[in-house]
């Protein structure tokens, strides 16, 4: 749970989220049990109001630079302003694995 906790803490500190989900989806991929390689993040923050999606994701990647440079292989990101989140209310599911990580081993 170490990386998941670090991601959660960093995002809470930096974005003061109105809503935050950090889901470990590593079990959906071709990695050993207990891995912390694939995550899904749903992040609702005032910081994102008026910003396009690319700069939103770049803000998140910057805050999580250490994790992204390390064990984290994939980060599904769903970023909303509080107003957008009220209108949507849920984030889409992540895709299933096709085994590409095996090429890394």
């Amino acid at each position, binding site marked *: 749970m170490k990386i998941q906790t670090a991601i959660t803490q960093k995002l809470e500190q930096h974005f003061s989220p109105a809503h935050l989900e950090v889901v470990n989806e590593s079990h959906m991929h071709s990695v050993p049990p207990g891995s912390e390689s694939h995550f899904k993040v749903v992040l609702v923050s005032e910081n994102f109001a008026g910003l396009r999606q690319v700069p939103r*994701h*770049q803000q998140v990647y910057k805050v999580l630079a250490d994790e992204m440079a390390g064990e984290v292989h994939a980060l599904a990101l*769903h970023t909303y302003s509080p107003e957008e989140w009220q209108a949507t209310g849920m984030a*889409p599911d992540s*895709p299933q694995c*096709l085994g*590409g990580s095996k090429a890394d081993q």
Partner: protein
Amino acid sequence: MDIMDTIKQQIEENDVILYMKGSPNAPQCGFSMRTSQAVMECGQRFAYVDVLSNPDIRTNLPKYANWPTFPQLWVKGELVGGCDIVTEMHENGELKTLIESAATPAE
């Protein structure tokens, strides 16, 4: 040529270019598959680079782009996004509009 120059040239010379794991016909990652399908459904020609067989690009494009993961879709020299953004744009119709306006018309 320096790898950063190669990347810059690819992005500048291709109006629509997708950096992905595997190819559109044989994607090696669920995120790349979902993204390449969205781009294919727009019905225009596009370039792609398989970063699994181009390790230099895989290492250096994230620095160039300030974007750490793949896939990455670039249109007219600008990063459109990864799987989450492209999928959302596909669902709301923005992707087709963007790609149709950018793609070189078929001859």
